[in-house]
């Protein structure tokens, strides 16, 4: 301890070494200096820097995981830029109108209603461009309710007590390789706190976006719902086309106190690489929610259509008695995409309940894996789980794996898992086409039906967008 404290003090001395302050990006590579640079750039208090450095030292001791089904060339963590802010940060877009027109065009193509968001009442946006949060709307209105919704950097400065209390409380630094890396270098993200008994009056939303070349994106999200609070949070991701693979290693932590409800929805459409598998995002994300209080509930809904590789398992720790965890997922892999995704439901409290619905769609050379764990410890009496995993295959070169694990350690609990894998139904296709539909439309319709159970859990605008995205991502999957 003393040693590290000493070396920490020594390093502090070296603080002045870093690159000029007005630089927009950290130098390539990762070291303690990179971390100091990031922390300094963000004007962080000392505790934050200390936390990051501790995480970095843990990360150095860890090995990149190899147990999942995904395959990718070795990542050179020294050949990456860990921090990049838009060039025009100071005079950057204060409102959505100031956002680059090209960017808005990309959004429009995807049908993301960012321009309408100001009109579309009920959607507050905290847009993260590269690493810095540039536009936060509706903040004032939320403030009336005592709701804090701001960029992570701001929260570190303005609400250090809350950050100290909750940061890393659900996903500890040492949790896994990518979580440790994120803890060391995270650039920004969102923070949200809903006070006791408050029902957040609108859907909160963040669009993440990787813009600059060769930039790893490491955002961090922390949502805390105090006793009896309710919040629905939407996360959407897009990224422009780059030849090179980019790493995205985010961490999301949710804490639900007694009787609180957090609904977290994601539509992930990072760049998936081209038809031949060139380029695309490596999406290695750790998402976990803690149902800390009795009767609390956390519900994850995800539609994963993008990224060349997805590695994520949004999970729930059901600590409070009578707490509920839900996971609804659609994962689409086309071309050379790979997805290894699923959830963990850890039943610790009595009479806890979890539901898992996972729909995987594989086309062309896509590889899709559902990986899940349902665990019921001896004291989690009277707990229930139901899991349904279905996979749809399109083409004879794609694959689908289903790897659930059930561990039931008490006699009053019940867990049930069902899974099917099959090809898209030829009779249905024929029927639709005989009635005049194009093959693509017919597939789109059938696939939508296949995913319906998941889509119905998304807020309406999101569901529409998710469906559009899925059509885009399945383009060229037949014929």
């Amino acid at each position, binding site marked *: 301890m003393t040693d590290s404290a000493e070396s920490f003090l020594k390093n502090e001395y070296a603080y002045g070494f870093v690159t000029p302050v007005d630089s927009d990006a950290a130098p390539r590579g990762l070291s303690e200096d990179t971390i100091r640079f990031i922390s300094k750039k963000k004007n962080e208090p000392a505790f934050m820097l200390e936390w990051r450095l501790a995480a970095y030292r843990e990360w150095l001791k860890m090995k990149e995981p190899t*147990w999942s089904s995904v395959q990718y060339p070795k990542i050179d963590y020294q050949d990456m830029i860990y921090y990049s802010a838009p060039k025009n940060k100071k005079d950057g877009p204060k409102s959505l109108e100031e956002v680059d027109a090209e960017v808005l065009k990309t959004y429009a193509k995807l049908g993301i209603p960012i321009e309408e968001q100001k009109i579309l009442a009920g959607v507050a946006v905290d847009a993260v461009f590269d690493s810095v949060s540039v536009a936060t709307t509706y903040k004032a209105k939320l403030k009336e309710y005592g709701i804090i919704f701001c960029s992570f950097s701001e929260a570190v400065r303005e609400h250090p007590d809350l950050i100290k209390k909750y940061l890393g409380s659900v996903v500890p630094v040492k949790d896994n390789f990518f979580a440790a890396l994120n803890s060391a270098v995270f650039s920004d993200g969102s923070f949200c706190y809903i006070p006791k008994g408050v029902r957040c009056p609108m859907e909160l939303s963040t669009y993440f976006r990787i813009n600059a070349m060769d930039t790893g994106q490491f955002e961090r999200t922390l949502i805390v719902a105090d006793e009896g609070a309710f919040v629905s949070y939407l996360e959407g991701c897009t990224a422009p086309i780059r030849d090179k693979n980019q790493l995205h290693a985010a961490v999301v932590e949710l804490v639900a106190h007694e009787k609180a409800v957090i609904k977290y929805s994601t539509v992930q459409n990072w760049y998936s690489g081209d038809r031949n598998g060139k380029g695309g995002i490596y999406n290695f994300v750790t998402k976990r929610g803690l149902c800390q209080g009795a009767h609390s509930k956390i519900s994850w809904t995800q539609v994963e259509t993008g990224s060349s590789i997805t590695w994520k398992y949004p999970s729930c720790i059901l600590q409070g008695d009578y707490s509920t965890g839900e996971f609804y997922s659609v994962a689409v892999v086309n071309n050379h995409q790979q997805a290894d995704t699923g959830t963990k439901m850890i039943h610790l409290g009595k009479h806890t309940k979890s539901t898992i619905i996972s729909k995987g769609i594989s086309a062309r050379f896509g590889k899709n894996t559902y990986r899940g764990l349902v665990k019921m410890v*001896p004291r989690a009496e009277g707990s229930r789980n139901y899991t349904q995993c279905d*996979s749809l*295959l*399109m*083409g*004879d*070169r*794609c*694959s*689908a*794996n*289903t*790897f*659930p*694990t*059930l*561990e*039931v*350690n*008490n*006699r*009053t*609990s*019940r*867990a*049930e*898992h*069902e*899974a*099917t*894998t*099959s*090809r898209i139904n030829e009779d249905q296709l024929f029927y639709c086409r005989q009635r005049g539909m194009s093959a693509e439309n017919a597939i789109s319709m059938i696939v939508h039906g296949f995913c319906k159970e998941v889509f119905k859990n998304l807020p309406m605008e999101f569901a529409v967008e998710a469906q559009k995205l899925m059509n885009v991502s399945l383009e060229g999957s037949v014929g």
Partner: protein
Amino acid sequence: MNEKIEWYKKAYEVLKGGRQNEPEWLLLLREEAIAAFVRKGFPTVKEESWRYTDVAAIAGVPFESDETVPALSPETLEVLKQKGGGSFLFVVNGKFSRVHSKIAEGIDVMDIGEAILTRPEIVQPYLGFCASSAGDAFYALNTAFFKSGLLIRVAENITLKEPIRAVFFTDASKEHTVSHPRNLVVMGAGSKGVLVETYVASNGQSYLTNSVTEVLLEKGAILDHAKIQTESVAAFHIASTHTLQRRASAFSSFSLSTGGRLARNECFVALDDGEASCSLNGLYLGDREQVLDQQTFVDHRKPDGNSHQLFKGLLAGNSRGVFSGRVMVRQDAQGTDAHQTNKALLLSDTAKVDAQPQLEILADDVKCSHGAAVGQLQEDALFYLRSRGIGEREAGQMLAQGFAREVIERTEIEFLKETLLEIVNEKLTRQFGSGKE
């Protein structure tokens, strides 16, 4: 190297001295096996497929072979022979005992150790051929150490009228003995037969049974197989059955595990040619401190195969039931139909159940499913039975029996059903404590 592993290596070297007569190819197989074992040692719970089954208790003790054939009373033999005619093959402490056996017409049975020396040409093409877990420590130990076991051959187009019953008996009067029986079953093209393996012991000391059975089904062959494991409560039992199926062959198996302190039953099936089918079923009943581990792997390699699996567990006391069932459908295996179900009931507060069904699908024209459910006796059904005047324990036992019967009904071997039910009822009676006497 850990001292226990060192111990096995030394024991191997000692054996090697007496193996000058063995053919080159076998010595090579054995060398590879012991090297693999020495390199990896015994599996630990860190390995995915051994996550819930801790073999530290096996790894911690050097088990030694004991080849003395105990004097068996005619009564004991009668009991072991059970009912029914056909061939009766007796393997005692891992060694095939021809004098105690009866071999019916139509099959060719030899001691595999003898066959290796006298007719290596009928063993060489098959030994180690069907096995799909060459990297596994227990498989490697068996390959390195086996001396005896059954070589069973059924010639082309022969239909056996009566079943083959093989009993593997351990006389556990000495502590820490091990047997490594190695069996090879070759079913010729178009042949048909029934094979029932039973593993039993005289109660006594702790011992390890480490058996490997390889089965080859040539084109159109049909084998109905059963494995009944009722070893003593002090036993460790690790057994793997590796089946390789040719075109349009059919394999059905039923495995019952009620014995052993730690018992692992592995069932590997490779559908190596088109239109082959298999049906794997099993039941495991644990109580006290038992760990019963059931592993299956069905590998669909070629088109139009089908596989059906149903495994059920009933766990009482402090027992643990583990099921891991892997189904792989390779790219060439279009038109595959593969289904698997695992159900387990917890009968006590401290029993544990772990289930890991796994589907790996690389072809698209398939129909595959798996299901796993862990629960307890249904409260409504208990209420229904009790409201008809049936006592609480009896009602529980009746439901548990019904649960077990569903899978027993799946076996193709009619004459065995009653025996299986008796074994199950005896164990359940103990668990529910509802036996009158």
